[in-house]
């Protein structure tokens, strides 16, 4: 019967693990791609040695080592599931060492899950979970040692090693070992208090000698969170829950003859509790709202522009989403043609204001790159590289390689290529870029790099000092083959409802290489500009379909002008026009 119960527990646990993997892969797969760009593991001594030289460095390094695989399909979900499952298994092993009279495996899932929820937080370093896991392994090893003196010596060594290798978990380890010694009435239990003293001394010394900035960063799991932000209390749950479970295991006496009710409760209650806890945690910390932008970011990163566009149907109230959409349209050469088919909300949807965060810096780098403003694309890539949580940003390092090649700064490009060649996922791409170094002909022949180089202004000036529109005009005039500058400019003017500015744009550039024909969005704007002057429509060759549609639009407006639900009414049939945007947004 006991064996049967054991199999049921393991079966339930396995079910949870599989469910976790499937859930992550189905609902959060883009999350891992998003996280990956914040960290950069390199297989070189100049990366490894500085990590090993500070407390917690080994855990950080192992964390980054694992994260590098997040770019491979399924790997993020698999690695995270494996980490959490291992944490649960080790907690179970630990608790069974203390008290084998109960089944702990399902309860062990609770602190494991509290760690799991942290992984959804963009500012959490998965190294924290790695550190927790390593601590559990060390703790299990300690409990296996039956000789009190050997165990004491082992614990002293482990506290010191964990301090250096894994950071704040060393305090948790010391507390667990003290609890164990006292809870089991071991003869050296009072000596075990030295472990806490040792932990205190190590922590104090690390702050006193400026190895660590603040006490909370060595004594608490805050070490594994963005140091400029205050983590949610969730970060402490795993520590507290583990200590609680530990104490319960020490306190609970084994029951020889368990009644059926008790046996059933022992099986079902933890499982139900785990499910409830998981449900609550996902709701509270799952950050579901951010998943959409992570999806867009992935599609953008991998050039899947149609996917970005497909995700952008319907109402959009988030400027970030709209910015991705417009970038996708621009990359497909359809910005001004199609932008008003979608829910535009103003200039910020075309060009977000820089808020000095990592993710906006990345997006703006992509946008400026698409426009052909290589200088600002490089600037944003640099800002994004500097502001990462981990050791580097491989995605933006690629951009720095590209922009430096475009500028002919081959030495710097070579430096960045060297770094990327030390990574698992990017080394192939990096190697392929070598052929461009010191080879202007190869650069100019390349479809992407060559075009960007041809788009560089000959007479440089300072970007943004004459206004962004000046930059866009100069880029458009210099290299009309790239339509994005003029379409971004026209789009900005239309979104700002600056019709005078738009009129000047048309009068200056229509019929030239810069703007030989008007895309659909601009044609619609021409009608607004000169509603009562059809000769202007002919001048700008506004299509008959556009003219006819405007005729219907106008009739609808006039027919319903006293209808309070006019915006909703018009949105249904004309929400995908500039006229609707101009009148109602």
């Amino acid at each position, binding site marked *: 019967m006991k064996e049967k119960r054991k199999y049921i527990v393991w079966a339930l646990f396995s079910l949870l693990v599989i469910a976790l993997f499937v859930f992550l892969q189905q609902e959060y797969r883009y999350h891992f791609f998003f996280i990956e760009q914040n960290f950069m593991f390199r297989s070189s001594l100049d990366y490894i040695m500085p990590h090993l030289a500070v407390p917690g460095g080994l855990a950080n390094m192992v964390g980054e080592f694992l994260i590098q695989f997040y770019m491979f399909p399924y790997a993020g979900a698999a690695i995270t599931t494996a980490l959490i499952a291992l944490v649960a298994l080790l907690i179970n092993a630990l608790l069974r060492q203390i008290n084998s009279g109960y089944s702990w495996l399902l309860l062990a899932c609770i602190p494991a899950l509290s760690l799991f929820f942290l992984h959804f937080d963009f500012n959490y370093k998965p190294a924290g979970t790695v550190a927790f896991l390593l601590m559990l392994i060390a703790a299990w090893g300690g409990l296996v040692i039956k000789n009190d003196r050997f165990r004491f010596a082992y614990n002293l060594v482990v506290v010191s090693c964990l301090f250096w290798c894994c950071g704040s978990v060393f305090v948790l380890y010391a507390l667990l070992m003290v609890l164990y010694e006292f809870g089991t009435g071991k003869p050296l239990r009072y000596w075990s208090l030295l472990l806490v003293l040792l932990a205190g001394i190590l922590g104090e010394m690390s702050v006193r000698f400026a190895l660590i900035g603040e006490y909370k960063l060595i004594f608490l799991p805050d070490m594994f969170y963005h140091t400029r932000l205050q983590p949610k209390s969730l970060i402490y749950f795993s520590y507290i829950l583990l200590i609680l479970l530990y104490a319960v295991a020490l306190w609970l006496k084994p029951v020889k003859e368990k009644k059926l009710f008790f046996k059933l409760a022992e099986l079902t209650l933890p499982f139900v509790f785990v499910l409830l806890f998981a449900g609550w945690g996902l709701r509270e910390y799952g950050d579901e709202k951010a998943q959409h932008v992570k999806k867009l970011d992935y599609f953008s990163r991998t050039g899947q522009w149609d996917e970005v566009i497909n995700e952008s149907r319907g109402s959009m109230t988030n400027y970030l989403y709209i910015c991705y959409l417009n970038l996708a349209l621009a990359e497909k050469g359809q910005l001004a043609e199609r932008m008003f088919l979608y829910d535009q909300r103003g200039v910020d949807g075309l060009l977000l204001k820089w808020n000095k965060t990592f993710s906006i810096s990345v997006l703006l780098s992509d946008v400026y790159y698409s426009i052909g403003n290589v200088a600002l694309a490089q600037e944003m890539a640099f800002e994004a590289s500097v502001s990462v949580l981990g050791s580097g940003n491989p995605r933006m390092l690629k951009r720095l390689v590209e922009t430096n090649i475009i500028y002919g700064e081959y030495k710097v490009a070579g430096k960045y290529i*060297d770094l990327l060649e030390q990574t698992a996922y990017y080394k192939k791409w990096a190697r392929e870029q070598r052929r461009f170094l010191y080879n202007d002909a190869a650069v100019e022949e390349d479809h992407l790099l060559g075009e960007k180089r041809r788009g560089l202004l000959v007479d440089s000036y300072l970007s943004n000092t004459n206004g962004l529109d000046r930059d866009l005009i100069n880029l458009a005039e210099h290299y009309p083959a790239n339509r994005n500058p003029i379409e971004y400019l026209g789009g900005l003017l239309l979104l700002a409802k600056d019709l005078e500015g738009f009129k000047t744009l048309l009068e200056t550039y229509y019929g030239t290489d810069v703007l030989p024909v008007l895309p659909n969005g601009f044609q619609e704007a021409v009608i607004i500009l000169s509603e009562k002057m059809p000769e202007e429509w002919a001048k700008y060759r506004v299509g008959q379909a556009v003219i006819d549609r405007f005729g219907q639009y106008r009739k609808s407006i006039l027919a319903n002008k006293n209808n309070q639900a006019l915006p909703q009414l018009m949105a249904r049939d004309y929400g995908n026009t500039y006229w609707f945007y101009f009148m109602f947004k």
Partner: protein
Amino acid sequence: MRTVIFFLFIILTACTNSLPEGVKVESLPAVFPDYMDVTIPRNIAPLNFKLVDSKQKLRVLFKSGEAELIVGGTNGKITIPKKKWRALLEKSAGKKIDVTVYENEKNGWKIYAPFAMYVADEPIDPYIAYRLIEPGYELWNQMGIYQRDLESHTQTPIMENKMTGDNCMNCHSFCMQNPDKMLFHMRETYPGTILIDGDKIEKLNTKTDQTISSLVYPSWHPGGRYVAFSVNATKQAFHLNDRNRVEVFDEESDVVVYDTETHEIVTSPVLFAKERWETFPTFSPDGKTLFFCSAEPYPVTEFKQIKYSLCSVSFDPDNRTFGSTVDTLYNAGTDGRSASFPRVSPDGNHLLYTLSGYGNFSIWHKDADLYLINLKNGTTRAMNEVNSNDVESYHSWSSNSRWIVFSSRRIDGLYTRPYFAYINENGQAGKPFLLPQKDPDYYHRFMKSYNIPELITGKVKPQGRSIALKAKNDPGVDVKFKGSLH
């Protein structure tokens, strides 16, 4: 057993101390860093280098008279033992070391033509301090001010921003290369200026209503009581297509002098004029002259017209007053370029400054070069023996006036590295050498720039925790503006 050990010893010493037979070639080896024909101090750390594009075994013979040192290397690099290197340098002070590189190629050893290293008699100050920061723009992450023992490869932090909420710290400055008397600024979180004088740490709030900013570029008066500062309204913009990448410019600036005893700022109309932009002050070693840069204002759209002259005005430290006559040592209006970072040698004989086409943030100007004024006879020359075709910018003197350290981007055009050069009494410089590292490939992977390298006569006391507590807990002393005292 003893026999085995004996033969092992023979074999090992034979392997590392002997020179192989090989084919001599006339060409010089391509080494990185470029340590050929450099002049070095006798107390510098080992100048480890590599043979470019080589992964072979090496032997390198360092020979100076009777003194010699043979070093073996693998993978195209050598690591010189510190004690033996130091002993060699001591014996070679004032003389030349001939360096011969042997490379083990597939078909035997290749012996390159020897190159020289010249060992100066005069030692260099044993430490430099610098800030390490990414060579960009607005954001930062990990940042700190560090000191490097020039006699070894050891670098230790003076202050890291992890101690103070990851804030920005900059503009470290030492009084006459004294490691016990320094200041630096913190920005954003726990803002203020930290002034350290021995065991005393003081936090200053240096923004006043009369000045356009907190105190910025510092320069200590030799007496230690005063510090000259600029106040600047600084902006940054990006070139759309220019090798200079970034332009950092002032929209306004002035020069003031801070009195550390009274916590007051004094100035003069010649330093605080609205119709001019004054910046980069520095005192003469006798403390009676204040040098500074001054430009006619232009709007940002005409940034290339902003050119700074190098000027000086007398200063009376007893009364905290300034002369009314401004002398011009370099006239941007007539010569057409722009001066920045004037620094006078401690013996008062020379003034080193940076000259570039325009502007004042010359680290971003590829044409920026070092120039030297002989203050005795007033002659000025370009330091062609140290300049390169890329940026040479910030610099400082050693306490014995025989060495300078300066910032250069000559390696890759973006990442600033510190170079040292010997300057004799006549102002002639030796070929500069790059700050040596244990691994010659270090700089290739290092993603931070060395900013504001300053030579110091000893190690700065490690007190990061004390500084952090002061920055966090002390409200700071408010500095008062006294204005012009005459």
